[in-house]
């Protein structure tokens, strides 16, 4: 449970207590009324979420992660492992699958569900071999003319000794270069956290979609706070200053579409999240399938050439 959801859960507790009492007395009217209040409270809290609250929702341990979407949005998924050089990174997974019958390549950051699986997945923080595996799968998809779908969910690329020795910077840079040139459609979806170079290392595409409570920025609010405020205590202000929400990013054309989430956040209704993603992907892909490859690449490059804000005096 998230801190700002406490009033909701307290009210829910009361409903439960009344239910237990109602075995002896009829309280159904009061229960019903209280249940209505719970929903109203949830709606009012979720109508005015602060950026920091959204960051917390994006990190919710029960929020759908890449493997959930693989199992529920796509069919016939076969995971493909390894960068063919030094190993297989469990923090990025990818493979062949079908979207409504169309063969596609899906690649995403993979977090864990609990401590054990999070340790295995390195909390979704990829090493160079993860980005190089993705690069290999990009080429495989292009070779067989299969569209690519990437799912972004990472607190950042892993800042470790081996990651540096193996060229974390080079691995990410190569992906940016390749993704700008691939002659197949690419749809990027920010499903949870999109932090820094570790996120954009899978993030160059023809369409950039983002779930309502996901966040995407150059740095996490915590690290931003520690650098600019010289303290870890300003994460809420940093989250606001960074303009990291889907609504903010749509405004400055970093993303194309916001995917709505159920009231209460994605963790409250997985099936709705799967359905939303599936229909959005099908709609985008239907459009992208019609564009000739050369034009697709030109448009993609043009899209990123226009990103940013500057004036010419």
């Amino acid at each position: 449970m998230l801190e700002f959801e406490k009033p909701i859960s307290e009210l829910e507790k009361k409903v439960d207590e009344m239910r237990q009492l109602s075995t002896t007395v009829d309280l159904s009217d009061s229960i019903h009324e209280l249940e209505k209040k719970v929903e109203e409270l949830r709606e009012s809290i979720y109508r005015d979420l602060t950026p920091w609250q959204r960051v917390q929702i994006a990190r919710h341990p029960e929020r759908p992660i890449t493997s959930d979407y693989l199992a529920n949005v796509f069919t016939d998924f076969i995971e493909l492992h390894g960068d063919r050089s030094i190993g297989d990174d469990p923090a990025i997974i990818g493979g062949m699958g079908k979207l409504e019958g169309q063969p596609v390549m899906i690649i995403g950051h993979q977090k864990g569900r609990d401590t054990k699986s999070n340790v295995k997945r390195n909390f979704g923080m990829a090493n160079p071999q993860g980005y190089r595996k993705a690069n290999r799968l990009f080429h495989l998809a292009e070779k067989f003319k299969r569209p690519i779908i990437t799912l972004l969910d990472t607190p950042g690329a892993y800042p470790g000794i081996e990651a540096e020795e193996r060229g974390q910077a080079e691995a990410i840079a190569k992906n940016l270069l390749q993704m700008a040139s691939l002659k197949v459609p690419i749809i990027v979806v920010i499903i949870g956290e999109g932090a820094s170079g570790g996120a954009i290392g899978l993030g160059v595409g023809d369409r950039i979609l983002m779930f309502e409570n996901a966040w995407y920025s150059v740095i996490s609010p915590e690290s931003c706070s520690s650098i600019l405020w010289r303290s870890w205590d300003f994460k809420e202000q940093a989250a606001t200053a960074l303009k990291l929400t889907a609504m903010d990013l749509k405004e400055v054309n970093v993303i194309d579409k916001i995917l709505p989430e159920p009231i209460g956040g994605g963790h409250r209704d997985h099936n709705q999240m799967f359905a939303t993603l599936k229909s959005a992907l099908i709609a985008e892909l239907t459009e992208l399938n019609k564009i000739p490859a050369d034009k697709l690449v030109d448009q993609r490059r043009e899209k990123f050439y226009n990103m940013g804000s500057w004036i010419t005096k």
Partner: protein
Amino acid sequence: MAWFLRSKKNIQDSVQREMPDGLWTKCPSCGEVIYKNELEENFYLCHKCSFHFRIGSKEYIDILFDENTFSETNTNIRSTDPLKFVDSKTYTSRIDAAYKTSGVDEALTTGIGQIAGRTVSFGCMNFNFIGGSMGSVVGEKFFIAAKYALENKTPFIIISATGGARMQEAALSLMQMAKTSAILSVLAEQGIPFISILTDPTTGGVSASYGMLGDIIIAEPGALIGFAGPRVIEQTIKRKLPEGFQRAEFVLEHGFVDFVAQRNELRNIIIKVIDWFMA
């Protein structure tokens, strides 16, 4: 992203700020006392230990280009503070302060000039402008300079000195990684050579985009080159990093730069590299 953390304790910064005033300075590496004009004549290297003092675009232009051939371009592109970013100061005030103290107009200076008679499209980052950080203006100036190389079929050379993407432009800075890489993908298709020179420091969003995308990647001796800043890594792994970690020689040993070149040899080696590409 660690430019701010680093610059606070970096000896070279204070040395550089003092250099215009004093007649002499002390080598931060070996302690040798060096006269300023002597330093200038020696490519800003310590004459005793070859320590490379940090310099900016003006000095690199003097070192690399044929005399009176360089003309600066795109000096009229300015940041707009698109996100109205405020921390302890506003982004606008940080930029204003940077104009005044750095003597340059952005973290990237671009222009066209000749090296041994060959025209080159060139850019050099200025670490003293908000930590050499890459925001929208750096991205756009890079883009225009790359396009010039493409349209005029000249080599494209960039010297990096940066802590990475500019935090105050948040996601828009992050997108500059994609923007600069996208135009480099066109140069690659068209066979336009891109030479990336990495100086101290080159980290974060720049190393993870154009810094590491050179057809030839050259590093200056001792330059810090990596993705994550050393302090972030130490906080993550909870131990001290070994001596020389992420330095140019280490990066060379691990296979991520083509060679390390001393600054006094830089022009000659670039002439040869360009000749191989363009002859």
